[in-house]
Each structure stands twice: as C-alpha cells, then as structure tokens.
C-alpha cells in the first residue's frame, strides 16, 4: 500500500521531465527558439557586432537609404535616421533593451502571478476569493492605459517599464496557474501524497509545482512577447528611457515622424519587432502544445 502511494507521485513527475525531449520534435519550438537564441547572442555581443556607435549622430550622414538604394553609403547597411545614426546598430543595441525588459518583466509577472495562482488554487478559501476579486478589478483596466499611467506615476525609465509590466500582467499567470492547480489537486497522486502524510506545503512545492511548471514555462514565453510590445508602446509614447537610447519602440516612433522622407527608419525596427513577437508567440504555443496538450487558456 505504502509502496503504491510513494511511487505514484514520482512517476508522474518523471514523465513530465522526460517529455522535455519531444520539444525538439516540435518545429515551432526549434525555429522560434533558434531565432530567439540568435537574437540573444546578438544582444549580448552587440558592441562587437554592431558596425557603428548606436548613439553617434552625424548630420552629414543623415537620412541615408539602406543598401541597394540610390545614395547608399557603404557601412550603413540599413541606412541612417534623420540625425545620422546607423539604423542597424540601433536595432542591434535595441535588442539588449528589449530582451532585458522582456526577461525581467516576464519573470517578475510570472513569479507574482504563479505564487498567487498556486496559493489560490491550492489553499482556496479566502485566499482564492481575494485573489479572484483582485483579478476582476485588474481586468477592468485597459492594460495600455494602466501601463502608461503607472509609468507616468513612477517616472519614465526602464525600471518603471519593467515594474509596470509585472504589476499589470501577473493576472495572466495567476488565472491559468490557479485553474491548473485546481485540476492537478484533484488527481490521484495528490491523494496518495496526502495519504502518506506529507504536509500541505510539501505537496504544493514537491508534487504540484513540478506538474504545473510546464504551463508556467509556456506562459513565460508568451509573456515575454507581450513585454516586448509593451516596452515598444511605452517607448513609442515617449515614456520608456530617453529618446536617445536605441529602443525599438523609440525608433518606430521616430520612423512614424519621418515616414515620407525615410521609410527605412520605420521598416527595419518594425520587422524586427514583428519577428521577435512572433517568435515568442510561436515558442510559447509550441511549448504549450508539446508540454501540456490539455492546458486551457
């Protein structure tokens, strides 16, 4: 009897972790993951990869078109903006900001949301009631307006952007994690663990969390995509870091201004943004598919 009870939770956990290998057979995970790893490498080694200084202005070199167009200046592969800054170098350095913000903000949102979701799904009762009510109130704020509001209140800057994203988007995690925890807690392995006499907290961390973890990982990837966009929106509105700094959103905002004179200032950062968001999304959905086919939205 005890034998059965001990082995049941262990096998469930093991099955989950062994299932990490089929991830590589999910094409979305391979392609999107590959793209994002490449992007991360570009960001890390930006000073060695970028052909120019992203902040250096040179009015003699202002508004140069990209390679293949008339007036192209060698070395400025994707052209320059109206202040003569190299678009390619700014995109490369922009990747640093975008990926930093998305990684930190998504982790924070994931941490807060997962803890609250686990707690309300496992302990239920008043914890659940309070968290659910909070989620309801949060959902009735338009997220873009709330983020603009938070950043305005905290003052523009990278820290504010990160905190704003975490404060707004924890609900995405808590809702799904709560549902998943509820579902897991009715499974036999939890009953078996309770029968052995493990404490509630022990069961939550050692038995349930490993089984909810795949869901959290998939959500993290999706959230990183959202964070990239929110950062871009806040830069676009002018509430992220200073307009000098090479952010994709800031470049896009600038490109919107000079659209008719130099379209390339908008096109290249926008394409980068598009590809990055798409990659995070594909990776997240691929992970979700490979790790947990029954996950609800």
């Amino acid at each position, binding site marked *: 009897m005890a034998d059965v009870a001990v082995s049941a939770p262990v096998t469930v956990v093991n099955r989950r972790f062994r299932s990490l290998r089929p991830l590589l057979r999910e094409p979305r995970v391979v392609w999107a993951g590959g793209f994002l790893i490449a992007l991360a490498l570009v960001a890390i080694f930006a000073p060695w990869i970028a052909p120019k200084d992203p902040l250096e202005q040179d009015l003699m070199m202002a508004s140069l078109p990209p390679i293949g167009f008339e007036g192209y200046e060698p070395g400025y592969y994707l052209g320059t903006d109206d202040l003569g800054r190299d678009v390619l170098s700014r995109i490369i350095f922009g990747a640093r900001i975008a990926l930093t913000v998305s990684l930190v903000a998504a982790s924070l949102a994931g941490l807060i949301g997962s803890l609250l979701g686990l707690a309300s799904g496992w302990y239920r009762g008043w914890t659940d009631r309070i968290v659910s009510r909070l989620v309801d109130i949060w*959902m009735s704020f338009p997220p873009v307006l709330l983020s603009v509001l938070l950043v305005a209140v905290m003052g523009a800057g990278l820290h504010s952007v990160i905190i704003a994203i975490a404060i707004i988007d924890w609900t995405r995690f808590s809702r799904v994690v709560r549902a998943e925890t509820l579902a897991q807690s009715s499974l036999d392995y939890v009953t078996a663990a309770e029968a052995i006499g493990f404490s509630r907290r022990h069961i939550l961390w050692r038995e349930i969390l490993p089984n909810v973890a795949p869901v959290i990982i998939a959500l993290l990837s999706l959230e990183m995509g959202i964070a990239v966009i929110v950062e871009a929106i806040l830069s676009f509105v002018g509430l992220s870091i200073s307009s000098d700094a090479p952010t994709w959103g800031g470049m896009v905002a600038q490109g919107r201004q000079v*659209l008719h004179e130099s379209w390339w200032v908008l096109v290249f950062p926008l394409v980068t943004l598009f590809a990055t968001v798409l990659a995070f999304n*594909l990776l997240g959905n691929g992970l979700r598919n490979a790790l947990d086919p029954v996950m609800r939205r």
Partner: protein
Amino acid sequence: MTLTSVFNRLAMAVLTLLGVGLVVFVLLRVVPGDPVAMMISPSATPADIAALRAHYGLDLPLAEQFFLWLRDLLHLDFGTSISLRRGVLQLIGERLPATLELTFAALVFGILAGGIVAVAGVLLRRTPLEAVMDFVNGLFLAVPDFVWALALVLLVGVLWPIFPLSGRLDPALSTDFYTPFYLLESLARFNWTDVGDVLAHLVMPTLALGLPLAAVIARTLKEALGEAMVQDYVLLARLKGMSETRLVLQEALRNAVGPTLTLTGVQFTFMIGGTVIVERIFAYPGIGNMAIDAVINRDLPLIQGIVLVFGALFIVINIAVDLIADRLNPRQLHG
C-alpha cells in the same frame, strides 16, 4: 438573464467602478510630483501656488478629496482639466464619440471579416487553401494591434497612399458639426462628401484595431462550426438535400455563435484598451489619444474621468454580451 440578475450585475459594476476610481485616485496622489508646479510659471510665488492648490482642492486630506470627488461625480461634475482648463465631462463628451465610432467600426469589421473567413474556412475544409488561411490567421493572432497599425502606416504611407493616415476629418472640409458624432451626423444630413471623408479617415485605425479581433473570431468560430458540422442534425439536413453553404449558414452557424460571442466580448474589451495606442499612432482625436496626453501632463481630474469612462465601457460591454448570448440561446429564452 433575469431582471434581478441584471440588477445584481449593475450593482457589482458600480462597486467595481468605485474600486477602479479609488485605485487611480490613490495611485495618482501618493506619488511625488506636483501637478500644479507643472502648470504655473517659474516666477509664481509660493502664495500663488498655494492658491492654485486650494482652487483644485489638492490641499485637503486624501480621504476628503476622494469623497468630494465622489460627491461631485454624483452631480455629474467630473472636475476641471488642469492642462486644458475645461470641464472634464465636456472634454470627454467631445472625444468619446470619436472613439465610439472607431470601436464600433472596428467591431463591425472584425465580426464581418472574421465571420466570412470562418465560414470560408469551413467550406474549404481539407483543401490547400484552408492551410494557407489558417497560417495567415495565426500571424494575425500572434501579432498585436500596435504592430499592425504601424505596418498599415507603412503600407499606406509609403507604397499605396489611398487613405489618410491621421486625424478624423480633412481640415479643408469646412462643415460645422452640431454633434461630435461626425459619421452619424454626416449620414443623417446626407452629406456624402463628409461621409466619404470621415470613412476614409476611419479605414486605417479600424483595420489596425479590427484585424486582431477578426483573427480571434475567425479561429474560434471556425472551430465551433467544425464541431457543429459533424452533428447529427447537420447530417440529416445534408440528407434533405441542402447545399454545403446553406448547411453552414443555416444549420451550423447559429449553434456556433454562442461560444464565439463570449470570446468576442472579451476581445472587444481588449480592443477598447487598444484604442489608446491606435488613436495615438493615427493621431485620431479620440478619448484614448487624450488619455496619453493627460497622463503625460499629470492632469489628475482628466485622467480620473477617462479611466472611469473606460471602466464603465468595459462593464457595459460585458453585460451586453451576456444579454445577447442569452437571447441567442433558445434554451434560455423559452426553457
């Protein structure tokens, strides 16, 4: 939904709105940064500043400020905008119609486009075209309105300048509007030049807002239709000799809209949130665009008013969606 449950929902809605108002109110006041300091000339004396603070009630204790604000709200007094120096209600009244016309246009577009794509997808089951449509739909699902808006700006601004990219009306048109509902009013006056111009200005922001909505509707409706199409009653209808198109439209569609509608409602509230940035990108004079300016100028009364309006819109839409869903479900209607 019974009348009592509608009342319950409304009561809950008022409570939620109060919560939203309180959160914003406190948030804006506990942080450093004096809105009055921003609007006054550097040469002003401390006495001038104090007078101005007293004028806006900013010198009172926080709780008292909140209750005064609530009391004024009950009298439909939303206060005066600090940066624009006009009544908040009046400003919202001027801008909200523009946003409503835009969101309504985007909603109509999203439902029509999403519905057509879903029906076409079901009719094209197991053909190569279905895979193509699913792929394109996936792109629209993955990429948010902000990016689509800018992509549209590029497309129309650089490659194919057929639609205006900013504003709501060509300044060259000298029509005097009596109401802020330009589209409705020009329609009512049969002023086709104005109708055309207002519509042309609506096209780009409508597409940016409506495309992600259309993608969500297309996917969920297609799934629901696919499920309905294998039901026995569809088989029986097929045996009665109905054409495939008619099977989808007459037999499957009505059973499939229920689940789709709920999701459309959720997505529609997201879309209302999306107006903030889309209006900004297209310099569309709606309430979302004004919200960003208000935040940047730390215009407390205006921010509070706008956030309340957004909260109210969210709640109204959610209740409306529930009501429509009930109407569409014959079980609830007669059972």
